[in-house]
């Protein structure tokens, strides 16, 4: 007899039930409607030990299902002082706090609202969860008129509501695309999570990777010898497929380039195949590079906790580049890592004047657009190689692949990295079909599991938020027999595997450089009969 299905497994949820969404808001005012927690709909609380590792205050045992969350004695003061501090240090927040006209243009653009119908998942209302407190304590009208001015008192109920809804947002910024003022709900989600963290409240799926990263250098908590083992293992796998033993330089002083990628790609399928692609490519180019164990994480779960924590974790990248004496930094396929690298790193931890402008040793291209931060994306690097015809490729080795491309939210809407990966994909795979226009590029839909939401215990939330993406994938599967979703994000590779299995059965997820590695013709290789996944190439399916 099959084991009973549990709420942390996708099979627990009936498709038809998830698809039956009621968009009619409940009766009454949202300010007065209480919040409830259902199994499958929230993340496990952060363990106190993870906060301790990071020297963060107020870590304690609590559960969203409990009536009493054991908030610290002066919790109201902590929240309001924190809010004041953030308002004083951010024009962005001040402007976003006061310019929303509640037109509702963002409402049905949010993948979490699309998939749930829960009105608090409308981006405008997600922001109002904080604005209502702002009005009550920081504006005259709110203080005097109360609810009539959209203001409300700070109560433990508000804190519970914040925990629920700021962990039902992946900070994907899709709402901002349609907002006439460009109000970025991610700013409110970040603010809400920051204030919660001051009370010792966060998700363990955020704080454990963050604590790991602080201690060991990566989210998975892999120790230095483990990083080496993983990479050596992947090199062994690569040798099996190609017959070539590649070098895996680690912590090597004097390398020209520091390569930083999410640690997820060193351990978990299907990310490991992408990591094999990197190893193959760098070997074939004879690149003078190194991995680092101290900076063995490109991703940054601090981004999902507080700006200070983000800075603390990110600091390792420049510090390690300096210690190893490299010339510039190359970054792997990752989503939120690139939000941090592109929009935050130089401001937080720069200037990086000890580094050189990234320059491809193969093509001689100077990447002027990165002359400040000194770090470029692997898709930019590879697209440049291809533009100069410096890679020998055999796309027929990917002939079993009928691909579509998922734009990850961060590279798409916080960086503008849209065409480089497509250029690479077209070179390595002959069959490439785009999903519908309103679900790709700057309007790309959500994987449902970014920003620390990729756990299992909140499976219902993830399946709902991933519904739009899943259906768009199913659409190209049905119309173009697409069988592979290519993406350049380690979180996507994990979360979209779940989403595709559920909403678009038969489509699997691959990284861009997995396909590059498979198509790459290497000097001295043996005739390839199988791809990195040990599937026969050329018509395996």
């Amino acid at each position, binding site marked *: 007899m099959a084991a009973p299905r549990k709420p942390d497994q996708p099979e627990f949820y009936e498709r038809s039930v998830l698809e039956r969404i009621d968009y009619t808001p409940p009766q*009454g005012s949202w300010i007065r409607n209480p919040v409830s927690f259902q199994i499958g709909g929230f993340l496990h609380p952060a363990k106190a030990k993870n906060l301790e590792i990071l020297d963060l205050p107020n870590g304690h045992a609590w559960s969203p299902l409990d009536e009493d969350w054991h908030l610290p004695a002066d919790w109201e003061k902590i929240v309001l002082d924190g809010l004041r501090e953030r308002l004083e240090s951010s024009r962005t927040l001040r402007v976003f706090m006061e310019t929303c006209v*509640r037109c509702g243009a963002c409402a049905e653009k949010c993948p979490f609202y699309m998939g749930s119908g829960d009105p608090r998942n409308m981006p405008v209302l997600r922001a109002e969860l904080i604005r209502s407190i702002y009005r009550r304590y920081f504006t005259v009208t709110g203080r005097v008129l109360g609810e009539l001015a959209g203001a409300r008192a700070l109560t433990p109920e508000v804190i519970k509501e914040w925990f629920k809804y700021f962990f039902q947002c992946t900070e994907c910024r899709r709402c901002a695309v349609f907002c006439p003022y460009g109000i970025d709900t991610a700013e409110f989600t970040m603010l809400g999570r920051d204030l919660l963290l001051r009370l010792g409240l966060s998700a363990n799926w955020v704080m454990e990777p963050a604590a790991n990263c602080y201690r060991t250098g990566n989210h998975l908590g892999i120790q230095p010898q483990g990083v080496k083992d993983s990479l050596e293992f992947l090199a062994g796998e690569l040798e099996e497929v190609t017959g070539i033993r590649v070098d895996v330089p680690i912590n090597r002083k004097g390398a020209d380039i520091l390569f930083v990628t999410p640690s997820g790609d060193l351990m978990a399928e299907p990310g490991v195949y992408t990591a094999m692609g990197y190893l193959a490519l760098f070997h074939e180019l004879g690149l003078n590079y190194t991995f680092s164990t101290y900076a063995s994480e490109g991703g940054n779960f601090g981004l999902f906790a507080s700006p200070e924590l983000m800075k*603390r974790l990110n600091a390792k990248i420049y510090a390690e580049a300096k210690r190893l004496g490299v010339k510039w930094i190359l970054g792997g396929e990752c989503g939120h890592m690139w939000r941090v690298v592109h929009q935050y790193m130089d*401001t937080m931890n720069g200037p990086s004047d000890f580094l050189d402008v990234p320059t491809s040793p193969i093509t001689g291209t100077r990447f002027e657009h990165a002359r400040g931060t000194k770090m470029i994306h692997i898709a930019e690097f590879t697209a440049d190689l291809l533009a100069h015809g410096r890679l020998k490729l055999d796309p027929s080795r990917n002939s079993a692949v009928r691909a579509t491309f998922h734009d990850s939210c961060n590279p798409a809407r916080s960086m503008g990295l849209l065409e480089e990966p497509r250029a690479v994909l077209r070179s390595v795979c002959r069959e490439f079909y785009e999903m519908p226009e309103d679900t790709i590029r700057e309007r790309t839909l959500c994987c449902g599991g970014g920003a620390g939401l990729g756990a299992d215990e909140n499976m219902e939330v993830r399946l709902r938020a991933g*519904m739009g993406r899943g259906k768009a994938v199913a659409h190209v599967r049905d119309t173009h027999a697409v069988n592979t979703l290519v993406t350049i994000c380690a979180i996507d590779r994990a979360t979209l595997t779940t989403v595709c299995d559920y909403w678009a059965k038969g489509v699997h997820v691959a990284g861009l450089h997995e396909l590059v590695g498979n198509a790459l013709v290497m000097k001295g290789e043996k005739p390839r009969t199988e791809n990195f996944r040990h599937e026969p190439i050329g018509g395996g399916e």
Partner: protein
Amino acid sequence: MFRAGRHLFLHLGGALGAVVLACAVPALMAPLLGARWPLLVLAVAALSFLAFAATLVWKILRWMRAPVPFRIPLTLGQQKSIASVSHSRSGTPHALGEVLWRMFLDIVLFRPLFRATPTAPATARGLSHGMGRSLWFIAVAFHASLLIILVRHLRLILDPVPAFVALLERFDVATEMVLPKVHITSLLFPLALALLFGRRLLLMRVRYISLAADYFPLLLLSVIATTGIVMRHFVRTDLASVKKIAMWLVYWAPVLAVRPDPWLVVHVFLVGVLFVYFPLSKLMHLPGVLLSPTLTMSNNNRERRHINPRNPDVVTMHYTDYEDVFRERMIEAGLPVEKAPEGK
């Protein structure tokens, strides 16, 4: 039933009450002043404008005082990176001119609302559809006609009337079959107001998020528009007199005795209320959007370092501390270390 309607009752009722109060004040005051009623009009106009300007400047300065912590442009197209890929100048601007062009499209032409195409049927099964571009049309109609109406009002306070105002009047014509001629904006503006109000009431999710602060300006503008249209087309307010009153304010010319006009008093008083209310309310979206970092910043993040004057000092894990913890294991694995293990 009461619970169901409580939210609407509170916010729509509150807004309605405020507007009724705002109408009652001048209606009751004007008769008391008798022949000196133009003074009320002038005082309201002058004081409300001063309050508007002072609060607006104070608010914007308060915004400006806080630094922008990070450069966070919203990239809506291809970035500028390698030579083989051409970048989207209007979606992901890089140079200053491109930023201004993006701001023009996004802020002046409301491009974000224009992007709201209905969800593709292929992916929409079971998903929310939204209203497509209808809000874009309403927003453009509302703001454009409001702007044109404001410019047309310049002829009441400027002498001689500037050429562009006269020109605008010549083009803004719906029909000349009746006298005075009917402006397009006199029809479009009330229509847009009605649509904005209607969608707030009828779209349940928009009603759910609507506050008194959303109904109040719409109701206020409705009364202002109504009194304006009544003055122009029905009671035929003596424009020459109005101009004389306005001139007094601008040129300090003596006020001549003019026929009392309660419509004008209410009209001007409510405009005064709007002026005072503007900088204290969501109407600040006008200056706000000009300071929105997502729409107004260049995507040159990796090229030029953005400075955050409040960049916090933080404690980090230094490499030496890391190596101290893992040194033995690193040596065992053959990884290079900075410092030899102690006692060896």
